[in-house]
């Protein structure tokens, strides 16, 4: 009896020890990935990519956390204060530069990842936007990007004999012509709410007027005659906006046929094409009593796109999303590097980009020629045609923002972006009766305060 119990005991001890060691061996490194892609269908794709990666590397667990792009800076601040920063984030280049300057980005790790993926494969314009001021380090790896432009009703323009909205003059004329407030019709949508969209639209106009935040020497030159002219023009255009402060959400008014032009990224290609799909099922055949609905059967066909706006100079504007590894423990850093490398594997990368064909454009120059790339699951590339897509992607070679001057990035511009000084300036002029001269002077003072020079 006694020996039996004894051996049973030792068996249990051995088993327990075995279990303990095996669980120690299997203890997976968990890394947290914050993504801007908050929509549930996109989350599903990212989750799928992450679980595929986990299946290939069973010692690593990926926790995907969706964070709204307007909340990213806020959430990062809160996480930093709480000491619970994620290991890797997807965010706009301006924010990544700002985070880089705050000292929370792991520069060494980003450099290593760029090297492994192949630095030469990236569009050089994209790499510039994530470069540290020292000219050799990077605050992130370019992931995908979009181009902004004016989307407009070609049919309405043709009816009234208006020229395509590619110059300041043409835009203002068309906006004036297409606005009829008594009929609830509006000429244009530009951003006037104090948030990112407003800065993006304003920047596009400022660039087309040769206005800059910094000169090549890195001096702040925001309060310039060109900037002032832009702000005054912007104030004029805002009269033809739907009432009150507006942001990108008002693009719905365009889909409803209540607006003539709106600024938007190439992300809308997806939405426009989806509206086309939706319209196919939302008919009176399927829904009794559905009549006079706002779905325009020919909206895609009747929509034109102008990515380059000209006043003193021609300018295109876009936003780059990058991945950045943040400072973590060595085990987490290794896992993060593996995960990021995996995301740039052509199959994983193309799956990611196909979440929003047209909106998420590749930053690796060789991807557009990949046989899988133009075969997106929703067939959107087919709707628009290969040429249109390639034009958009090539725009990324010479994309402009306030951040980069003569190929050199100014992270201060990222800080200014994060503080929303420009959209607040626009808001104060349009809604609070502040004069453009005063608003611009105040904005420059705030920028000066912020960057301390």
């Amino acid at each position, binding site marked *: 009896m006694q020996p039996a119990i004894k051996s049973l005991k030792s068996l249990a001890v051995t088993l327990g020890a075995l279990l303990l060691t095996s669980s120690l061996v299997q203890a997976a490194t968990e890394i947290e990935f914050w993504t801007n892609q908050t929509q549930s269908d996109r989350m599903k794709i990212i989750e799928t990519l992450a679980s595929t990666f986990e299946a290939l590397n069973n010692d690593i667990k990926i926790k995907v956390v969706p964070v709204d792009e307007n909340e990213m800076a*806020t959430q990062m601040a809160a996480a*930093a*204060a709480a000491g619970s920063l994620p290991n890797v984030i997807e965010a706009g280049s301006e924010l990544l530069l700002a985070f880089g300057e*705050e000292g929370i980005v792991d520069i060494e790790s980003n450099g290593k990842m760029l090297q492994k993926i192949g630095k030469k494969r990236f569009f050089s314009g994209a790499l510039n936007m994530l470069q540290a001021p020292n000219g050799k380090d990077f605050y992130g790896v370019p992931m995908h990007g979009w181009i902004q432009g004016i989307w407009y009703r070609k049919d309405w323009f043709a009816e009234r004999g208006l020229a395509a909205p590619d110059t300041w003059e043409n835009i203002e004329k068309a906006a004036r012509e297409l606005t009829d407030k008594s009929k609830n019709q*509006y000429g244009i949508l530009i951003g006037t709410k104090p948030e990112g969209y407003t800065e993006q639209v304003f920047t596009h106009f400022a660039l087309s007027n040769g206005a800059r935040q910094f000169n090549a020497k890195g001096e702040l030159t925001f309060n310039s005659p060109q900037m002032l002219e832009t702000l005054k023009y912007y104030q004029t255009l805002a009269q033809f906006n739907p009432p009150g402060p*507006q942001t990108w959400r008002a693009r719905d008014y365009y889909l*409803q046929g209540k607006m003539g032009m709106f600024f938007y990224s190439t992300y809308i290609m997806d939405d426009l094409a989806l509206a086309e799909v939706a319209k196919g099922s939302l008919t009176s055949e399927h829904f009794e009593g559905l009549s006079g609905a706002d779905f325009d059967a020919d909206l895609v066909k009747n929509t034109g796109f102008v990515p380059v706006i000209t006043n003193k100079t021609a300018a295109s504007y876009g936003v780059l999303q990058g991945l950045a590894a943040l400072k973590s423990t060595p085990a987490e850093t290794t896992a993060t590097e593996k995960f990021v490398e995996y995301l740039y594997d052509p199959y994983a990368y193309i799956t990611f980009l196909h979440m929003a064909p047209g909106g998420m454009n590749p930053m690796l120059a060789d991807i557009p020629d990949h046989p899988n790339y133009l075969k997106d699951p929703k067939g959107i590339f087919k709707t628009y045609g290969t040429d249109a897509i390639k034009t958009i992607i090539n725009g990324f070679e010479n994309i402009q923002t306030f951040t980069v001057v003569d190929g050199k990035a100014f992270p201060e511009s990222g800080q200014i972006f994060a*503080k929303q000084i420009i959209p607040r300036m626009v808001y104060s002029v349009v809604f609070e009766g502040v004069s453009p001269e005063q608003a611009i002077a105040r904005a420059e003072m705030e920028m000066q305060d912020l960057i301390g020079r």
Partner: protein
Amino acid sequence: MSDRIVAQESRLGYRLLAPAFLVIVLLILYPIMFNLYLSFFDVQLDGNKTWVGVSNYLKLLSDQTFYHSLGTTLIYLAGTVVGTTVLGLAVALLLNEEFPLRNLVRGLVLLPYFAPVISVVFGWQFIFDPVNGIYNHVMVEELGLMSERQNVIGEPDSAIWVVIVFDVWKHFPIAFLLILAKLQSIPKDQYEAAAIDGYSAWGRFIHVTLPELRFVLGTVILLRLIWNLNRFEDVYLLAPNVETLPIYIYYRAFTGVIDQGFAAAVAVVQLVFLAGLIWLYVRKVLKW
């Protein structure tokens, strides 16, 4: 002997108090002290702090937007506290009368209070949407009361009033509930006596109802002041352009490049303001 019992009892007392004391220290005192501490520093994202003395407070005193948000807060407090109290009182008086289905109506009146904030906020935003909302449709097209469509929630001047009306609508039921409970306990004979003394309905309200309600009204006003001075979610979700103090602090602490030392300083000012308000109220109005 009795000394020992007293000592033992007081020791037991301390032990019984300890958990509550600990919770208060951890969850209330510590954050307040930490906030006070932060307000003297320039706080960096990576956790580095630099001592800056009272410069955060000096910056605050010279900040125009701070005074603006202080003003907004006062308007918001006055509008919502008066609004909920008056509406709550009126509805309580009305529903204290006998009529058929009274209990059902009393239940329905509570609905706004129980509805989740986020869903009613979306509802209100849709109602006031400048292009598609029913408010503009009725005011401009049906009634012709306004010549042009307006973004009532978007325009900062009108948004504050929408936020006040929203708060009154959402929170008057709590005032109603508290006042109704007290109304039901006022003895009938007091009203009869007042009637015999020749008081009209208005006189009975002034001389019987109001004095009886004094403490309940005091409680309602006090609670509403405290709640609304700190109220964040309703205002921020419905109209983020209405910068009351909590929203001003949020923008400073968490949006853009953080300025948490500065935000902490504003929070300290808000705390002092709150404490002062409560003191004034308790001492001068309630005379407790």
